[in-house]
């Protein structure tokens, strides 16, 4: 076998490997514990420009869902997370012994407790949304272009459980409308 042949074979192997890795990372997955009932009261969280947000809203309304709330971006305020970096600077500039072993543990614990707190705050907010706005299901969506994976997830606010999810590799011919049609059909289709 000549050096050229070896090179060609290696390139082909590399291409096949690359393709297989790309495919595996863009694998379509779908899980349905419960389907979204007709005329359900939903809140939609999606991060897209307003014109596309209208398309998403129209698609849900067209299918008979009662869209109680819709956010252009995430509905939880990330600014409420305390900036721990500031605390670190404050501590280091303090008169406390910089070599103390407990410093690392203290920082770690602060980070952890803030993440736990953040999750608790979000759950409390969801409970409030459910009771005040009569929302039963939270729909999270991220619509992507061709070669990427669009994904969606539904949270049942009665039990805080993920009741449906799907990763959908966006096709060449897909647009916002076709992806929305796909997702709505999928989330309402029986198991």
């Amino acid at each position, binding site marked *: 076998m000549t050096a050229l042949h070896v090179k060609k074979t290696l390139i082909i192997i590399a291409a096949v490997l690359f393709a297989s890795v790309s495919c595996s990372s863009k*694998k379509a997955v779908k899980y349905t514990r419960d389907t979204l009932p007709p005329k359900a009261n939903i809140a939609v969280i999606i991060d897209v420009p307003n014109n596309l947000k209208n398309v998403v809203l129209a698609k849900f309304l067209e299918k008979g869902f009662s869209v109680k709330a819709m956010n252009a971006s995430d509905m939880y305020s990330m600014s409420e997370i305390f900036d721990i970096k500031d605390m670190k600077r404050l501590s280091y500039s303090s008169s406390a012994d910089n070599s103390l072993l*407990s410093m690392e543990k203290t920082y770690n614990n602060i980070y952890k407790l803030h993440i736990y707190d953040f999750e608790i705050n979000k759950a409390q907010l969801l409970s409030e949304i459910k009771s005040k706005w009569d929302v039963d299901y939270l729909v999270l969506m991220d619509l992507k272009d061709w070669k990427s994976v669009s994904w969606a997830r539904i949270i049942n606010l009665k039990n805080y459980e993920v009741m449906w999810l799907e990763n959908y590799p966006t096709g060449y011919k897909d647009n916002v409308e076709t992806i929305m049609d796909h997702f709505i059909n999928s989330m309402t289709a029986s198991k």
Partner: protein
Amino acid sequence: MDRIKKILITLAAVLFTAGSASASPTMAFGYLANDSKNPDYEYLETIFPNSFANSIKNIFDVRVIKPTQINQRLEKYKIELARSYKTYEIPEMMEKINTDFFIYGKFVPLPQNNILIVLSLYQRGSNMIFTFSNVGKMESEIFRLVDRITQILISLLDVDEMFKTETLPKKSKLAIITNLQGEELNQLYYELTQGGYYISSMQGNTLYSPVNENIIEKFKFIYSENNSYDIITDKRKVHFLHGTWSGEPYQEKAEKLKQMYLHYDMNYPETKKEILNKMSQTFNNTIDYLLIVGFTRNRKRAWLRCINMKDQNLMWIQSNITGSGVAPIGASIVQKMGTTLKTPFDNK
């Protein structure tokens, strides 16, 4: 952590390669302090560590140092092996006895002839301490108890760094904290659901997550009442200097720092208990297990910690879960959920 990993991998390689005595790691066994007020049990303080040492020595090629031998090494410093140690005293003591690992603990006889054993494992130079507890029958099953605890130690020192007290039953509801979001988080959720588990909406109720590769690393260290893997705190090094020279602003600042250390370090077990209780209540007590999974940036390796939310105990530690991406690692986690620790004693 890399250093710890290197030592553990070396140790695991040595443990499983019989005959390479020259590279054998040394494990020192301190006393298991009698934590009851009954002096009749004091004889067990030495019997237990000697039994653990013999049990490990019988299976793997390690050099074990028993309490009497530790005392011989400490003679030149004119000190004796103590019955118990504060965690911050261990690193200094390790330098004196010059071994790779130090294992010590305590026991408490319980009603109905049971005994609680609490064991701590310290690896030289790591500044981390792993503590776990186990309950067994005092007389009839004492050797089984020794075998079980030895098995926990061996699993922990294996490359997987695995510790597990129970399996996760199917249909349990899992809350997950991880450094994944969006499509990747869906992939992980999917694999767990295929294993028959239900997923709590924790973290999955946002498009984006604040938990990145750096933050998730903080969750590697977990304290719980019965089992913990935590950083050693040296209280002696905390100084809040004050005097007549210090004005009110300084005092206020020092007080704030003091409160911070009390809340987030010294009294952290109480603080954490409070927040986990609040978390359970907020999610209407529906979460069975809190699973914390940290992925490397390239998603080829992961570690996990799992807390049983019913008793808030750390029940599963595992490192070095490998795969070609999130999906295979997720599938591997599911497969491990139903397994228990290896039992090398069955093959003796």
